[in-house]
């Protein structure tokens, strides 16, 4: 296994970079970060649509959540990658497909996390804001979101873990991320499946398990902060 890592470790880490396209673990992490960065504002807007009080917006939100929950991510990838080229004048690259599909999916899950955080805020916060004469947008951006989104940070970390795991589906449409690179390597070498897939599983394990430890620590820290705030009052 050590020998394999010495020879192909670089390929699994960064693909053919800098002499060719980026790939492997670096691609997995960068794509996941990009997806998370796009998801976050969309999810926040969705959560606000649900908590705003407008019935049409709330219905749109519910419909969107049900749509996403009712279909496998793989089918959405099929729609984007294999169907869209029939109706569009151009076809989407595997990278764009994965980012688009994961963004559509994860926005819904993250929106639920943010919605829960907004709804968990004590009602006194809204009363105080209206006592100060704040309008909806002032209340939202100065009072609600700064608190709710801080409380969401652990949820953001677990969403990041989910996204990292979802990027592995890129393998199916030959997107150059870690799982695809490892699978290709297995096809070339043929005789080392145990070593290659052990390395692949361990890489994901270390990355995601480590992140979830971090998320747990952040959660405890935020809970402590909340407790001390409560006792101050």
């Amino acid at each position, binding site marked *: 296994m050590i020998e394999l890592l010495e020879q192909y470790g670089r390929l699994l880490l960064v693909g053919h970079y800098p002499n060719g396209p980026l790939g492997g673990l670096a691609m997995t992490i960068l794509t996941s970060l990009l997806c998370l960065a796009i998801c976050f504002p969309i999810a926040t807007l969705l959560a606000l649509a649900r908590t705003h009080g407008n019935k049409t917006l709330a219905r749109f939100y519910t419909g969107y959540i*049900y749509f996403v*929950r*009712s*279909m*496998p*991510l*793989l*089918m959405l990838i*099929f*729609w984007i990658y*294999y*169907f869209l080229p*029939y*109706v569009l004048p151009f076809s989407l690259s595997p990278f764009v497909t994965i980012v688009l599909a994961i963004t559509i999916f994860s926005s819904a899950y993250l929106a639920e996390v943010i919605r829960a955080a907004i709804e968990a805020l004590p009602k006194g916060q809204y009363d105080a804001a209206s006592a100060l004469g704040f309008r909806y947008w002032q209340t939202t951006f100065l009072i609600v979101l700064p608190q709710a989104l801080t409380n969401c940070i652990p949820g953001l970390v677990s969403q990041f*873990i989910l996204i*990292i*795991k*979802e990027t*592995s*589906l890129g*393998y*199916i449409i030959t997107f150059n991320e870690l*799982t695809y690179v490892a*699978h290709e390597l*297995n096809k070339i070498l043929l005789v080392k*499946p*145990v070593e*290659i*897939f*052990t390395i*692949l*599983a361990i890489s*994901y*394990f270390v*990355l*995601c*398990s480590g992140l*979830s430890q971090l998320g747990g620590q952040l959660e405890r820290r935020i809970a402590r902060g909340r407790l001390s705030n409560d006792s101050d009052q």
Partner: protein
Amino acid sequence: MTLDYSAILEDRYFDYLVSGAITTFSLALAAWVAAIILGLLIAAVRNIDFLPTRWFCIVFVDYHRSVPLLVQLFVWYFALPELLPQAFTQSINRGNPEVFFAWVSLTLYSASYMSEDIRSGLRAIPPGQFEAARTIGMNYAKMMRWVIFPQAWRLSLPPLVNQALILFKGTSLASAIGVAELSYQARSIETQTFRAFEAFSLVTLIYMVGTIMIMFFGDRLVARYALKRG
């Protein structure tokens, strides 16, 4: 491009869809039943005060929650047959190894999440319940049977329903190791007829029927058995 469902509903492609749907639903059901049993077992063993078994459960659950399901499928399908005894591998290969390994990985994956759902249900029971049961002279088994379990399973039900949904959708990944389930059939109809919209919309619809059924009956179950505290 005009819509024409008749082209993909003729004999051959219709058979693809039906056999795909049967594979998806039976794989999900078989893995669900096995996962609940294994999940209960893991949750029980995890609570035993013996360090090696506890650590085994922690690593087992952590592995299945941290590694993508697709990679778990690959590990079972490509790597583990090399390590298992030859006779065993051969007997699997005589049957349908793709379906077998997909079932194993889906079961282990779901069981890990379910064991955590069951554990958090148990942990949510106030200690007073345990003490009260002991005080009126119940032994451990009776306490679990009559006091703890009736409450715990109701608390675990909502996450377990959600897990059933994730498991059902997760069967779609089995297509990556060649299990001829719904999404696999969607792709083969599409490549043979170039009717992407018709094939994908029918398959998406079948998935939606499955997921909406799970959500609907799950919600009714949760509403019916919700703990009434007060």
